[in-house]
């Protein structure tokens, strides 16, 4: 099966290469023979990559240590669950997984458009297959997952214990689904530039792809934060690590695009801007991959054998050059005659939102590459840590949060101060009352706490402004359509899925802001060397160290489990069991934290160290409102589902347009 897997990888490269060329030639020469021939390629390439993937999975499940990859990332004792996920645990497998997703997306785009005679389709397919060629080239000639070991060992080295966590089964595929998904809007944008089809059609073709990819990237970031929180054992979930930043930057730019594209749809302007954002989002996904796989930076997220830097750097420069040339070349077609009606309008608020998002994106980019530039230019290794990002991104983030609240209550096209006052007074009143209530309760002794106080006020402002929008809309509909309140709310959302789904997403974002603000400012921690019976106090909790025990979990894993009784108001409410896990062949043990999570706070207990006399060093974090982050993620998921739900009205409009177009432009009339 390994031979077959390696062989199909090579065949996939050949077919993808042929497909790229054949699609372009079929479009340029308008040749049916070449098009029908190329039309088979997406399915063949996908099937070949799928066979290779199955071969690698089979090798992992059957402990075939003749493969270097299986030896490096699996062993006999590894749970099947993690054998499955070790497919993307290493560089080679993760690249194969990336290629599998890309070829699957390409196949879906192919099936979506195979009956359409749009000239952009073959070019978009060529771009998708072209990107696939790059990844297949790497898999075949630089990082082959089917590389053999001449004398296969009896057992493997096993998967990095940090990756043996359920979040690592979910987090990378979700992130990759987002990363890879942005190749589709990129392909359509390039096809639009090539064919001069630069009206709204490419935006409409890619709208759902963008929303879905954005969603996966957003959830991928959140799942990654969850993994860091429960597995890395430092009490936090985000450290502005370069690889975290690499996944964050495309998300930020795609968010800017999702907002600014609405201005293009409504006002037929900002075409250059939107085109640039789509292309930049894809560039950032490749930049993220370059960061992870170049070996230039050290991170818990980078791959051990990060040697692909030059390939990705070359690819990155190639894409940037092509995109720049294409935009400059088509600039006359992308220019817009329209202008904003007023700077006091929702369009203008979207424009500011874009500037702020790009500000965050640029600050994050600069912080990420500065150590690399510093080392290359001056030979000095500098670390850019959380203080830099917090100093720059927190104020911008707060301004952005304010805009989320301003957006719903400001009119499209033009608003006036008197109407703004009328619409703002309720959300502002809610925020001020909330602020007045919080003021005596919350500490305001440093900048971070002041920012958090402002964030809470803004969260209340945004939430009330969104809820007010739902309320007003429902009431207006209820009166004009003579519907019940519940019926009016339902039909209002149903007929404006994008708008109200977007508001639900914003509620989720507000929850995330609240969670970050509270946990970053009001969290406390304590570390203590404890003997059996000792107690430790944090916030309202008292933890009593009861015992410690060693358990041989499997033949390769030993667990040292400490037990602490957690009391609140003199009543036992929970038993914390933090662990240290020792894996055979690994020098460092892994901490398995124990977390009691409630809406108000998390109690996060770590077994930092232990001795033979049963004493142990226990570290306890009290993290307020961390669960709001994860709940915010689910609310975002709900909102995205509403946004991406198939819109019959839009489909009907599209069909009517096509019908009319056909009547006017049918060949019979020529």
């Amino acid at each position, binding site marked *: 099966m390994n031979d077959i897997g390696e*062989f199909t990888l090579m065949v996939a490269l050949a077919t993808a290469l042929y497909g790229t060329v054949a699609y372009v030639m079929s479009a340029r020469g308008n040749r049916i023979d070449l098009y029908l021939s190329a039309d088979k390629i997406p399915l063949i390439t996908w099937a070949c990559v799928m066979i290779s993937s199955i071969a690698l999975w089979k090798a992992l499940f059957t402990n075939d240590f003749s493969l270097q990859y299986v030896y490096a990332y699996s062993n006999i004792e590894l749970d099947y669950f993690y054998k499955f996920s070790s497919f993307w645990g290493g560089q080679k497998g993760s690249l194969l997984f990336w290629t599998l997703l890309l070829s699957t997306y390409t196949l879906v785009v192919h099936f979506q458009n195979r009956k359409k005679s749009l000239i952009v389709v073959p070019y978009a397919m060529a771009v998708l297959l072209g990107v696939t060629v790059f990844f297949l080239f790497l898999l075949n000639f630089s990082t082959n997952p089917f590389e053999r070991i001449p004398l296969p060992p009896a057992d493997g080295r096993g998967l990095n214990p940090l990756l043996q966590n359920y979040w690592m089964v979910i987090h990378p595929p979700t992130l990759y689904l987002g990363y890879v998904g942005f190749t589709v809007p990129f392909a359509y944008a390039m096809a639009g530039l090539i064919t001069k089809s630069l009206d709204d059609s490419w935006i409409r073709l890619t709208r759902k792809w963008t929303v879905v990819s954005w969603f996966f990237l957003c959830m991928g970031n959140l799942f990654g934060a969850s993994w860091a929180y429960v597995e890395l054992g430092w009490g936090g979930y985000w450290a502005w690590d370069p690889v975290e930043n690499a996944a964050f930057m495309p998300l930020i730019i795609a968010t800017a695009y999702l907002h600014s594209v609405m201005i293009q749809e409504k006002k037929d302007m900002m075409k250059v801007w939107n085109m640039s954002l789509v292309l930049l989002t894809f560039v950032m996904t490749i930049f993220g991959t370059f960061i992870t796989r170049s070996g230039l930076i050290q991170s818990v997220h980078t791959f051990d054998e990060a040697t692909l830097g030059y390939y990705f750097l070359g690819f990155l420069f190639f894409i940037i050059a092509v995109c720049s040339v294409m935009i400059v070349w088509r600039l006359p077609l992308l220019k817009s005659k329209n202008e904003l009606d007023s700077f006091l309008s929702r369009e203008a608020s979207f424009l500011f939102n874009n500037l702020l998002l790009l500000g965050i994106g640029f600050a994050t980019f600069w912080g990420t590459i500065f150590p690399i530039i510093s080392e290359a230019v001056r030979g000095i290794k500098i670390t850019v840590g959380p203080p830099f990002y917090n100093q720059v991104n927190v104020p911008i983030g707060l301004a952005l949060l304010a805009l989320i609240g301003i957006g719903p209550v400001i009119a499209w096209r033009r608003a006036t101060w008197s109407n703004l006052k009328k619409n703002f007074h309720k959300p502002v009143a809610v925020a001020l009352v909330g602020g007045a209530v919080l003021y005596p309760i919350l500490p305001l002794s440093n900048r971070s706490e002041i920012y958090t106080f402002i964030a809470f006020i803004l969260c209340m402002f945004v939430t009330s402004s969104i809820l007010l929008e739902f309320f007003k809309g429902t009431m207006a509909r209820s009166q004009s359509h003579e519907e019940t309140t519940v019926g009016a709310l339902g039909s209002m959302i149903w007929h404006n899925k994008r708008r109200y789904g977007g508001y639900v997403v914003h509620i989720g974002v507000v929850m995330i802001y609240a969670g970050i603000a509270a946990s970053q400012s009001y969290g406390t921690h304590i570390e203590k060397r404890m003997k059996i019976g000792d107690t430790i106090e944090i916030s309202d909790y008292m933890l009593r160290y009861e015992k410690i025990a060693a358990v041989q979990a499997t033949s390769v894993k030993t667990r040292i489990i400490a037990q602490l009784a957690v009391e609140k108001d003199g009543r036992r409410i929970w038993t914390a069991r933090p662990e240290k896990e020792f894996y055979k062949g690994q020098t460092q043990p892994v901490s398995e934290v124990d977390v009691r999570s409630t809406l108000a706070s998390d109690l996060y207990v770590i077994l930092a160290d232990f001795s033979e006399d049963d004493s142990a060093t226990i570290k306890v974090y009290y993290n307020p409102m961390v669960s709001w982050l994860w709940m915010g993620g689910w609310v975002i998921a709900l909102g995205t589902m509403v946004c991406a739900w198939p819109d019959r009205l839009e489909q009907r409009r599209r069909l009517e347009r096509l019908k009319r177009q056909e009547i006017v432009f049918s060949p019979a009339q020529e």
Partner: protein
Amino acid sequence: MSFIHFIELLLIAGIMVAVGIPLFGKLPKTRPFSEVDPVEEAFKHLLVRKEEVLLAIKELEADLQTDKVSNEDYESLRNKLEGEAMAILEKIDTLEKDKRKSGKSSAKNLLLA
């Protein structure tokens, strides 16, 4: 020849046949893609713009109902949007008539004008 080699050979042959048949078989001489016609593109764009302007009028009404715009702004913006809609509809009608009458060339002139 081993079984694996046989399978590999079979795979290549299958792919060659699937990809090659359209290249060497008899096919009707049709053109798979309609060329990008600037007039058609403009027509398509106008249809989309028409929908967007009508949608904007609806949104403006909703903004009035929810007190986001004043009556004066509503009136002036509505007049502006209706003017835009009328201009678009006129262009669409002229383009349709012109296309039916004399084909692309004069329609192109209209667009250029």
